[in-house]
């Protein structure tokens, strides 16, 4: 998928309903339930082995860039809007993108010595996504909670979320992914249905990489 360069301001780039997104081509990313057998603890596997979860089948991904920023627009089916986190059983809806930081980084949350960078948006903090880094299941650490801006809306049983960030971070560091015009990049995705108490590995995820090229 080509991430086209457009000459628009950040406000439009970041708005999931901006006209510019109408012209962008979507990639349909297939999602599957993260298997119960892959859950890292016996409790989680036992609790969820016979319960449906990760039922979103597909995520529509669009991506654009302008002179300085890159934005990913993610849209997926979500019957209910869950954006509150007060009751003990409240789990907000969420979506995440995973960028490999090394050649060997597996798309399943990375591995030892093969980290991944995660952009994690959750509906209780609708205006930003967290930038985490992980080297395997259960190891994610928050690096930065502010620099990925987000805008989201829930309508007609769908979430549409745009995550937007500077192409080159002002303070480059390990774990922060950098984007360079002309380069190839890949990402995988995950979606959580908060209304179904989904969190951690109880999610839908893409079992293959989405290959992209960033227009210069």
């Amino acid at each position, binding site marked *: 998928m080509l991430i086209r360069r457009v000459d628009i301001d950040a406000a439009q780039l970041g708005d999931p309903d901006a006209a510019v997104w109408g012209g962008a081509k979507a990639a349909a990313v297939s999602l599957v339930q993260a298997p119960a057998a892959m859950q890292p*603890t016996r409790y989680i596997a*036992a*609790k969820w082995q016979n319960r449906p979860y990760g039922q979103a089948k597909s995520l529509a991904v669009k991506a654009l860039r302008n002179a300085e920023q890159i934005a990913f627009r993610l849209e997926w089916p979500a019957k209910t809007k869950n954006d509150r986190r007060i009751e003990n059983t409240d789990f907000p809806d969420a979506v995440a993108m995973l960028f490999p930081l090394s050649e060997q980084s597996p798309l399943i949350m990375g591995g030892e010595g093969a980290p991944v960078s995660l952009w994690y948006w959750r509906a209780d903090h609708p205006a930003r996504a967290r930038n985490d880094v992980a080297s395997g299941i259960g190891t994610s650490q928050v690096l930065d909670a502010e620099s990925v801006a987000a805008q989201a809306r829930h309508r007609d049983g769908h979430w549409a979320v745009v995550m937007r960030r500077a192409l080159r971070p002002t303070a480059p560091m390990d774990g922060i992914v950098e984007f360079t015009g002309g380069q190839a990049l890949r990402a995988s995705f995950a979606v959580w249905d908060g209304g179904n108490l989904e*969190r951690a590995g109880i999610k839908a995820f893409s079992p293959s990489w989405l290959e992209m090229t960033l227009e210069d």
Partner: protein
Amino acid sequence: MAMNEKNIIGRELEGTLHKPSRQLAMVFDLNKCLGCHTCSISCKRQWTRDEGMEQQWWAVVNTQPGLGTPKNWEHLGGGWDAKGEPRPSNIPTRDEFGDAWKFNKDEVFHGGKGKVTYLKPVTTKGEAPDWGPNWDEDEGGGEYPNSHFFYLPRICNHCTHPACLEACPRGAIYKRADDGIVLINDKQCKGFRFCMEACPYKRIYYNHVRDVGQKCIFCFPRVEKGVAPACARQCPGRLRFVGYLDDENGPIHKLVHKFKVALPLHQEYGTQPNVYYVPPLSPPSVDMNGRVDPSRPRIPLEYLEGLFGPRVKEVLALLEAEKAKKAKGQPSELMDLLIVYKWPNDIFPDFVRDPAEL
């Protein structure tokens, strides 16, 4: 602690339970508990006063028989089944724990309505509560003239095979090797709350402001300085013993291993709790004509066995026998141990420091 570490104490690896080198434990003598709740309040004042902790009560005192805190916790699942497999459970809601109420103090005290309304609580949803953290206090069970209840103080049991620790996908819960205290690392915790499901005693709370799980910490900052946990030190009933299980000179070892009068609560949950209970004696049951039946205590034996296991009968018999010896002026090491003549040395000899002197 990352999930790929293989040596997490309290976790089962290849069928073996990785145990701490020493284990701190508590024994609660239920013959002495008045249900005064000083323990609950001392813990609350010490640890759970911050925003997001309003509904947290790490130390509770439930009336038994009763539904307790959270409501009906004994039947919510969690822990391990007879085959050692995790038993699925659910996260109790704030209402089931008994949410933090607000009171209409303004209208009663300052709003001039003191004569037309009364001080009353409302839930966070603004409704009259129909459950609280100690709602069924003193209701008990049984039928007159044999109604009965006793108090059951409960904290995190700092289990040897903790279901919470094993449930956490981030390895955010760890058991200390030197003393067996089980703690949630609140930097590693992401508020997934599988621990809340897995704990069969339902002693973990959710802080929605910080998005982490929180629970009793065995007052480890006090314990590390030789000061007893707040709940134990403040207890006016002198019923909360604290010490190491392996210390043969200490009260814990004597009550649990020597005299064997301290029993685990719901051992069938499989978590190997390190808080033990001396079961309560009760007066004999009586019929409507006032005739006493000494063979049947007011608190039914079967009920106590359902809590503390099959040894209750022999433990109660031993307590009666030792009480009788003492009453006749004969010596009884067990009774002297339980009475706690000298405080704090007889009850937590390793933790006698006064926190005011630190």
